[in-house]
Structure formats: C-alpha cells, structure tokens
C-alpha cells in the first residue's frame, strides 16, 4: 500500500497561518485541503466579492501546482429532494473551479440543507429510502461530470436516532456505488455518534463501508447541554477545539480497517485559536496524527 499522505484543511484566517506555517515550512504537510465554495455567491451566478488573503491564495496555488490539493465543499446540499437553480449554478461553478485549480478529488457532505427556498448552513439527516438514494446518486454523477474528478461524501455527525446513526454507513454505501466514488470518513463525526448513542467504537465503525474510505478527517468539538436530561451532555461537531484522545484512538483503529486510505487531514475552524498555546496544541495534534498515519 502506498504511503498515506497527511495534511491540513487550510483556512484563510490568521490563526491558521500562525499555527500551520511551521508545519508547512518544515515539509510535514503532504497535502492541503480547501473548501472551495465557502464564499460562492450562488443566487446571482456572479463571482464573489470576497477576496481571500494573498498568502492563502498563494498557498493553495503551490499545492495545486504540486498535485497535492484536495477539494472540499459545503454548499451543494446533495440530498435535497427538489433540485434548485442554486444547485445548478453550483455545478456550473464547480466545472470552472476544477479547470482553474488542480484538485486530486472533490468531496461534499452527506445530508441536505436546502428545501423550499430555505437554506440551512449545516446538513440535516435524510430518511434512508430508495428515492433518497436515487437523488444522491444522480447528484454525485452530476458532480463527477462537472468536476471531471472522483467524488466523495463525508459522513454526518447528526442523526435523529440511534437507528439512523447505525444505518448511515449502509446509506453511504448505497450512494457511493460507482468506482469514482469514495467515503470521506470524519472520525470526530463518528465519535459524536458513539458518544451520543452510547455505541461501541469498533462495532459502529464497522457499519461504514470502510473499503471505500479514501480520506479521513480529524478534528475537535465541544459539548452542549442535553435538552431531555437523559444524557450528561451532547457531543457536537463544532471543529473548534483540540482533537480528543478518543478520536486518536479511532484513527488508530481506522488505519487497520481502511485498506484504501490515501489521505489523513486535520481540520479546525478559522478564528478558533487564540494565542501560542492553542497554536502549539494544533501542531501537537498534527504531529500525533502524522506519526500514527505514518506508523511511527
């Protein structure tokens, strides 16, 4: 098996720049991932007024030129039952994006966040039905046609029930039915389900199509209050803290169970690190992830 490439999800924020520069300059970052659609203005099909900082654009370009850039998306809403003009515009922009930048592959999130003109910025679960599978497959096909790349889906932390959490792996397996499809396995999202539904880590992980995992995400999160009071707390996928020990344990396990894994990426939202202690923690998390992925 080729050596796993380890990298960072690039954020256009100063805290990321300060935390990551040392890792990048010391050649410890094999690949970068970027969310290419974060500031797309889709309603009017125009180029966004938002300009990324020069250093960020240069960084992305370097990794693009070196065939080491992964594309990640947040705005398609792959399982919306009704296709919108906004989604069609997104697909057009994807085509242009993949001509301008050299992505190794592109990925989106499982779930839907657009319905009847309402757009939620976070994906919601979808009932596992034949219709939903057809919709998702069709949209993945369009995404592959527009990008001319292999396309993947990231598993979702939120599930409305324990059963739904346990069925998501089968749902993803049904959706990702083409050879150019892959699973982006977010281990913190898996951890959220394990924590919130009191699941066994290995049993739960094994419900996902692990042979389709090409990329893994690691991140941190937070806890919020349980409304019902039947749990101590709810684990949330907020991407704003250090990587918990349980997620490193999941990485250790996943590395033995995902035979086609190629990339392991550390994610942290921009503007969530405040000062040198946080930067050092971010680099320590990266180093631990790197060593695990490289079998050190």
């Amino acid at each position: 098996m080729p050596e796993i490439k380890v990298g960072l999800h690039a954020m256009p924020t100063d805290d990321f720049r300060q935390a990551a520069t040392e890792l990048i300059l010391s050649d410890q970052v094999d690949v970068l991932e970027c969310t290419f659609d974060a500031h797309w203005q889709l309603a009017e099909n125009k180029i966004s007024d938002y300009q990324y900082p020069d250093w960020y654009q240069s960084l992305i370009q370097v990794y693009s030129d070196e065939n080491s850039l992964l594309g990640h998306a947040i705005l398609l809403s792959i399982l919306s039952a009704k296709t919108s003009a906004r989604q069609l515009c997104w697909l057009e922009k994807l085509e242009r994006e993949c001509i301008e930048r050299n992505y190794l592959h592109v990925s989106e999130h499982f779930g839907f966040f657009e319905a009847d003109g309402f757009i939620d910025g976070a994906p919601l679960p979808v009932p596992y039905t034949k219709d939903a599978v057809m919709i998702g497959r069709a949209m993945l096909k369009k995404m592959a046609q527009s990008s001319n790349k292999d396309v993947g889906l990231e598993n979702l932390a939120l599930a409305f029930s324990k059963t739904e959490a346990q069925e998501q792996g089968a749902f993803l397996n049904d959706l990702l039915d083409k050879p150019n499809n892959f699973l982006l396995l977010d281990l913190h999202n898996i951890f959220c389900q394990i924590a919130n539904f009191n699941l066994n880590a290995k049993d739960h992980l094994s419900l996902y199509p692990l042979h389709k995992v090409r990329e893994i995400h690691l991140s941190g999160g937070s806890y919020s209050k349980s409304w019902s009071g039947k749990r101590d707390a709810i684990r949330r996928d907020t991407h704003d803290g250090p990587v918990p020990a349980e997620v490193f344990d999941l990485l250790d396990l996943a590395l033995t169970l995902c035979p086609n894994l190629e990339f392991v990426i550390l994610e942290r939202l921009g503007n969530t690190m405040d000062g040198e202690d946080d930067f050092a923690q971010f680099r320590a998390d990266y180093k631990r992830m790197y060593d695990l992925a490289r079998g050190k």
Partner: protein
Amino acid sequence: MIGRDEPDLVLFQQELVSALSSTDSPDKIVQTLESNPKLNSFRSYISTFDVDMVQVANELVHKWGSRH
C-alpha cells in the same frame, strides 16, 4: 433524479425545515411532525426521533438558516 422531484421527500424536507425553524420545544416539534397528515408515509421514521438530536437540529437551523 436531477430534474425530477420526489414529491414525498420534497414535502418531508419542507415540513421538517419549517418545524425546525419554529421556536417550539423539541418534543413539540416532533409532535407537530407526527401529527402532520401530509407526512403519513414518514410517521414511523419520525416516531424514532430523539428529542436531544431534534434540539441540535433546531439550534443549527436557527443559527445558520435563512430563507432565499
């Protein structure tokens, strides 16, 4: 399929987002969905909803959602 809407699921997603956009409590949101006659084919699915997870979805919709 692209270009073809799936009526039941279209309706379910509209009603779910509408219910989650309300200021009702999570148990009331579940009750509203369960008693919605347009969602009969999803009743057994809705009956499995965990109110803590509905609360999370409710927060997400209120934090990030907007009508276009």
